[in-house]
Structures are given as C-alpha cells and as structure tokens.
C-alpha cells in the first residue's frame, strides 16, 4: 500500500505525519517528495548509501546544420530559445524539456541532450528505507525529480510519501499511483480553504482520502466540511507547545512522546480498512 501525505496549505504538519507514521511501522519506506525543500532527513538523520542524478531532456544544437531560421524560438512555449543572426542561445532554467524544438527543426539541427535538474538520495535509518528527491537550486522541474524518486519505491513493502505543499504539478506527480491520500490540515479558514482544493485534486485523481487535524483546538469549520463531503477524520493532534518544542529540536514526535506510536499504528490500520 502506498499512502501519500498532502495538505494544500504549507506548514500544517505533513512532515510530522509522514515521518512519525513511518517510524511507527515495522517494514516500511519513506519517500520525501517535497523536492524543493526536503526536510524529513532532519528528523530521521538517515545514512545515505546511494545518490542518483536526475536528468531531463535539453536540446543540443549542431551549429553546422543550423541556418538560424528561428523556428525553434517561435514554437518554444516557454520562451527558452533566442535565435539571433548567427547564434542560438538556450536558457536552461526556462526549458521544460518538451522536445518540441528537436521535433520541429526543419534542418534537423537539434538533438536530444541531457541536463541534471536534481538528485535522488537513498538510504536507511535502522529498518526504515528512506528515499529523498532534491531539486537543484534555481531549477523548476520538480515533477521530474519526484517521478524519479518514486521510481525507487520497493513495491514489496508499504510506502509513505511526503508530498510538497500546494495543489499544482509537483503535488499531482506525488499523488499519481497511490492508494490513499492523507490530507493534513489545521482548523483555520486558510487551512480549510486549501484543504478544499487539495481534496478536489485527490477526488479528481480517484484517490480515497481522509483528514488529519493538526493543531486541533476548535475544529468546527473542518468538521462541517468533512461531514458535508463524507470525508473521514482519521486523527487529531492537539495544539500543544510540547509538540512544537520537539519539532524545533528535530526530535520525532514518537520519540519525544512515545504514546503517539500507538496512535500512528492505529491510523495505519484505519487506512488499511478504508482502502480495502
């Protein structure tokens, strides 16, 4: 079973849920897909054993064949190519690697090259297998790194994916091919607003979902939304200074407050039942 932890709004507690759920289970892997700022490693302190480079298509120009007709620049949807009288400039950080220029060059002067946009680290912490995608600084192609990280998932065991915040392409890439989506929220109007959008994304992708209310105090706005849409509330984590203190020191919740381990195990069992 593959479970993704998503939220819409940032800072609701995706990392807390993903890391602690993974630490509470026996045979499991944790995949940090928040590739723009992966931080699961801060709590796990895993031993990294392998690192893989993530590359995307990047056009290469054969200056011998190019007659500077400008077709590539004209068709590039990302405005990444500039063709001057006798030179072509390609801007790597604007290129999305679609390959349109290679396909449509009338002189066949462009061919597919490769360019690194990020890395995937693989390691472990005791029995926990750990995979982490990391986008290179100034790059924008997060989905490529997320897809590569997910390709290392060992399908013979359960997997917990820590998704990036938001509801755009990187989140969709994280949600692809998973069995269940945990939506972490907080009982604020902003939390609810983004929960609604994230829930819609999971629904469109046909992924069953459930809500965890973090910083739980007065939850009525979240409760009425869940009730109206028939979304199960899987867990509540109270608004507790002790939890914030542990987080600020990089100590996993289940280590600082061991009674949570059982709660996370119960959460996993609940999800297993819901997926059935």
């Amino acid at each position: 079973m593959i479970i993704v932890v998503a939220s819409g709004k940032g800072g609701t507690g995706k990392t807390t849920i993903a890391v602690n759920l993974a630490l509470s289970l026996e045979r499991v892997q944790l995949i940090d897909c928040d590739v723009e700022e992966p931080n699961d490693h801060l709590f796990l302190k895993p031993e990294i054993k392998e690192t893989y480079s993530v590359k995307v298509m990047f056009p290469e120009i054969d200056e011998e064949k190019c007659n500077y007709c400008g077709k590539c620049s004209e068709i590039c949807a990302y405005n990444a190519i500039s063709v001057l009288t006798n030179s072509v400039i390609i801007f790597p950080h604007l290129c999305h690697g679609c390959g349109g220029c290679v396909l449509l060059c009338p002189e066949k002067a462009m061919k597919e090259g490769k360019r690194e946009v990020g890395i995937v680290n693989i390691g472990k912490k005791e029995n926990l297998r750990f995979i982490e995608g990391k986008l290179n600084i100034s790059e924008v192609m997060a989905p490529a790194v997320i897809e590569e990280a997910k390709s290392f998932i060992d399908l013979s065991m359960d997997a917990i994916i820590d998704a990036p915040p938001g509801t755009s392409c990187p989140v969709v890439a994280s949600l692809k091919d998973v069995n269940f989506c945990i939506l972490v929220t907080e009982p604020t109007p902003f939390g609810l607003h983004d929960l609604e959008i994230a829930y819609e994304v999971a629904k469109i992708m046909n992924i069953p979902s459930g809500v965890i209310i973090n910083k739980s105090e007065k939850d009525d706005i979240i409760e009425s939304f869940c009730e109206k849409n028939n979304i199960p509330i899987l867990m509540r984590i109270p608004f507790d200074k002790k939890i914030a203190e542990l987080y600020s020191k990089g100590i996993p919740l289940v280590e600082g407050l061991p009674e949570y381990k059982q709660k996370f195990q119960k959460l996993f069992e609940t999800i297993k039942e819901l997926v059935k």
Partner: protein
Amino acid sequence: MIVCITAQGSSLDSEVDPRFGRCSYFIFYDTDTKQHEAVENQWKAAMGGAGIQAAQFVVQKGAKKVFTGRIGPNAEEVLKNAGVEIVEVSGKVKDIISKL
C-alpha cells in the same frame, strides 16, 4: 542608426517604461531619418521568458542601442550577444530622443 526606447505609451510624450521585457511599447527611432515607430509589446504578459523574446525582437528590428529602466539577466545576455548597447534611463521618450 536605429535605437529602441521602452515606453509606457505609444507616443513620444510617454514616459520611459522602467521594465524591458514587460514594457508596454517599444519605440524604435531612426537617428538618420528622424522617423519613429511604436510597437506594442506582445510578451508583456508572457508566463516566462518575456525578456528573451523581447530582446530577440529588438535585435530583429535592427536596433543597436536600447534605452530602458532596468534589464533582466536573460534579456541582457541576448542583447550583449547581438552587440546591442544597453543604456539605463528614466524620463520622457522625447527627452531621450532630443539628446541623441
């Protein structure tokens, strides 16, 4: 020589547009014939790479000098590569032209 001035409107009375890639108009002025032409910037609202396309357009129009407020690194690379001089200015378009 043709020069290009980024402008907030299409007339010579307009203020210089402080942005290059996302300016409202490009005003091309020919110092020999004293003629000018204002062209609306079609990349003003581009998702990305506006400066690159704008710079390529200015080069294609034959401008040798660009007068603008500020220029981004990508547009600057294109213009420098094409040998176009960049001058950072402010004020009215007609005042820039009168000093040429």
